[in-house]
C-alpha cells in the first residue's frame, strides 16, 4: 500500500466498501430498517414483502455500505448462506412483538452461527430488536436472554431496541457496527 493511500486511509478520506447482510424472519422489518439508512430522497414509501433479496447502498462515517437485504420468508431463507462468505458484518432484525416465533429466530440464528463460513470468522453481529413501539414488545434484554446471545463468545455482538418506522435506535446500532468493521479492517491491513 502506497504512502499516499495509507495517509488517505488514516485521514479517512478514502471510502471503503463493506458488505453487510441483513437477515431476520419475514415481517420483522428488514427492508424498513435498510430503507431508513438511505438518504431522504432515495427512500421508498410502500414496503412490500421482499422476494429473494434487494441490494441497497448507504454510507456511514466514510464506510460505503452495501446491504444485502435478504427475504425472510421460509422458502427464501436458504439463500442467506450464499452471502455469508463475502460479508463484513451481519444485521439481524428481530420482531420483538412476535413472541411465538422467538424460537424460530433462535433456530435460524443457531443455524447461521454453525455455518462454516460464519463460525470461523470474527464477524460483528448487530441485532435490532425491532418494533419496540408495539405494546406487546419484549425488551432487548429479554430477547438477548431468549436467544442465548451471552453464549456467543467469539464474535462481537450488540443488541439495540429499534423502531424502524421512526428511525429510533437505528443510528446507535449502525454506529457500533461501523466501529467494529473499521477495527476489523484495520487489524487486517
Amino acid at each position: 500500500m502506497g504512502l499516499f493511500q495509507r495517509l488517505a486511509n488514516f485521514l479517512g478520506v478514502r471510502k471503503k466498501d463493506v458488505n453487510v447482510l441483513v437477515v431476520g424472519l419475514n415481517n420483522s422489518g428488514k427492508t424498513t430498517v435498510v430503507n431508513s439508512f438511505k438518504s431522504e430522497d432515495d427512500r421508498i414509501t410502500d414496503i412490500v414483502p421482499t422476494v429473494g433479496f434487494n441490494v441497497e447502498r448507504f454510507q456511514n462515517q466514510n464506510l460505503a455500505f452495501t446491504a444485502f437485504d435478504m427475504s425472510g420468508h421460509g422458502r427464501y431463507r436458504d439463500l442467506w448462506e450464499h452471502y455469508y462468505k463475502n460479508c463484513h458484518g451481519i444485521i439481524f432484525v428481530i420482531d420483538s412483538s412476535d413472541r411465538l416465533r422467538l424460537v424460530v429466530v433462535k433456530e435460524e440464528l443457531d443455524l447461521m452461527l454453525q455455518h462454516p463460513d460464519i463460525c470461523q470468522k470474527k464477524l460483528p453481529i448487530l441485532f435490532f430488536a425491532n418494533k419496540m413501539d408495539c405494546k406487546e414488545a419484549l425488551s432487548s434484554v429479554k430477547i438477548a436472554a431468549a436467544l442465548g446471545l451471552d453464549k456467543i463468545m467469539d464474535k462481537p455482538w450488540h443488541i439495540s431496541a429499534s423502531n424502524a418506522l421512526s428511525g429510533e435506535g437505528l443510528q446507535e446500532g449502525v454506529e457500533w457496527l461501523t466501529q467494529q468493521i473499521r477495527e476489523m479492517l484495520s487489524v487486517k491491513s
Partner: protein
Amino acid sequence: MSRGELGISRWLEAHTDRSAGLTTLPGNMVLADVAGTGDYHLVLTDLKFNQDTKCRLKVYKGTLLVSDQPLPDIPSSVVGFYADQLEPRIPVVAVACGSELFAYKNLKPFYKFRVPFCPLVDEEAGVWTEVTNSESFGADKLLNALKAIPYASLSARSQYILNQTSPILVAELLRKCGKTMPTKENIITCMASMARSSRDRRAIACPIIATEFGSIFVLDPQNFAILHQANTCNVKATPFIIKSTGLFDVEFRLLIATREGHICLLRKGWLEGKCLIQLTSDIVDMVAVPGDNFVIVATSDKALHCYSKKGQRLWSTTTANLVTCMSLVPLEHISTCMVAIGLKNGSIQLYQGRQPVDFTSVADSPSVITFGQLGQEEHVMVVITIGGSISFKILKRTADFSSKVQENSPMLQSRPLPLPKRSKLFLEQSIRERKNALEIHQTFQQDLIRLRLSAARALVQNLSDQSGIGNEKEQLKLSAQVLGLGPKFTVILSLENINPNNPLVGLCVTFHVNPLYYVLSLYAAKVPLIPPSLSYKLETKVEEVIKEGVESDDLPVGGGKGNCKVIRVFVTRELMPVPVLAATINMPPTELIV
C-alpha cells in the same frame, strides 16, 4: 442429513401454557385471519359444562389471548370461511350453538341463523292437534298416547312430559303450553366449510351444517339461505364429523362420520347420502386426505383404517395407544400431506401414508390438534390437552421427512415385499441395462466364448505338454529333459512331489528302451524320499547304437515308425503292479557326423 436420525426433534417448542384451563373438543378450533392483516389468529371455544359459567369464544393472537366473549349456549363446532370479496378480506367465524349458528365478523356477532325445525312425527302431531283442539284432554291420556310413540322421535317437550314423575306437573305443563304445537329442534352436531367456485385459499366458501336428525344443509355464505339440503343416510344416523372436498359449484363430496359407525358419502345433487363404509367399532376421528381422496379413520380399538374414495379399505394399522384426535398436516413445500394422530399417552404421531415418520409429545392426552398458519409462521401445530394446557409447536424449516420414508402410497398387500434398498449405483446400472441390452448381452456372450476357448486351449496345452506329466492322486509330477546332440545323450528326469504336506517314499523308476537302438547307463533306480514340494533329479546316459548300413527308419520294431526312437519311463511304487506314472520321451534324431 436427517435431523430425525440424530435424535433432534423436527419441532420447535414455541410456547406451552399449562394453566390455560381450556376445555375444547375436536372441530372447535380454527386458525383464521380474523383481523384481515395476514396475521392468523387461533379461534377456539372454551366449553364449560356447569350451569353457572358460560362457554366462551376465545381468540389468541400468537400466544396472547386478545378476545374472550361469552356464548349463549354450549357450542358444538366452529368454522371460519370467507363470505365476500370485500377488502380487507376478513373471514366469518361461525359458531354452532344448539340449533343456531352465530356468525362473527371482526370478532363481533353479526348474524344468527336458525336451522329449520324438524317436522313432528305424524302420531305425535296427531296427539298434539287433539290437545290444542279439545279443552279436556287429560294428562293420563296424553301420557299414554305419547308412550306409544318411539321416544327418540319425539319432540323435546313430549320427552320432557314423559320424564315427569307426578301427573300434577304434567297437568300444569299442559295448561301452560297446551294451546301451542311443540317444536322439534334440529340441533347442529358438526360443521365444515366448502369452497364455492375456486380452490384459492381465500376463496368464498359455504358453511355446511349437519344436525342431530341427520339433515345436511349447505348455506349461502352471504345471506345464509339454504342452498342444498339432504339427508345423511337412508337409515337413522347421527353425523358427528363432516369433511368436504371439491367445489360446491362444480362437484363436491361430503364425507360424514356418524355415531352409529357409518361413513356416508354425499355428492352434488344427491338428496340422500350413501353409506360407504360400515365400521364395527366406534369412530373416534376422521380426516379426508386431499388429492388422493383417501379417508383415514381412527377407531376406538386403537386402529387406523385408510379407505379409498370408493370405500375400499387400503390399509389398516394399529396404534400404540388409544387415539384421541387427528389432524391433517399438509406440507406444501415438500408436497406431502401427513396426518397427526394424538394418542392418549400424550404423544402425537405423524403418519405419512401408513408409516409413522415422526412424533412429538405434549403434557397429557391431546384433545384437539390443529395445524396451519398462526401469526406469520406457516407450520404451527396447536395442541390443547384434556388437562387444559395449550402448546404451540413450530415445524422447523429444515425438517426433512424424506430419508425415513420408504412407501408413499398405501398398498393393497398387507406386507411390503422384502425388496432391498435401491442404491444409486443399482439405479444407474439398471438404466444402463435397459438402454443397451443388446450390446451388454453380446459382450457377455463374447467374453464367455473367449473364456471357454482359453480354457480348452489350456487343456490341450496341458495334454500335449510332454515335459510335465503329473499324477494328481499321487501328487507326483514328472518332467524329462534330453541333453546332447547324439549319439550320446543325457536324460535328466525330474520327479517333483507336489503334495505340500506329505513326503513321497518307496518309488522306483524304470526305463524301457529298445536295446537295438539305445543303451542306457541305468535301467532302474530306486528313488529316495522326496520331501514335500521338492524335486529329485535322476540322470541317465543314453547311447544310440548305430549300425553301419542299416537305416534306422526301416527297422520294424515297435510297430509304428516314430515309436521306435523312444524311451518309456515308468514310476512304480513298491509291491504295486500298476505304475503310478508313465511317460514317453521322444528322442531326437542323432546328427550324424559323416
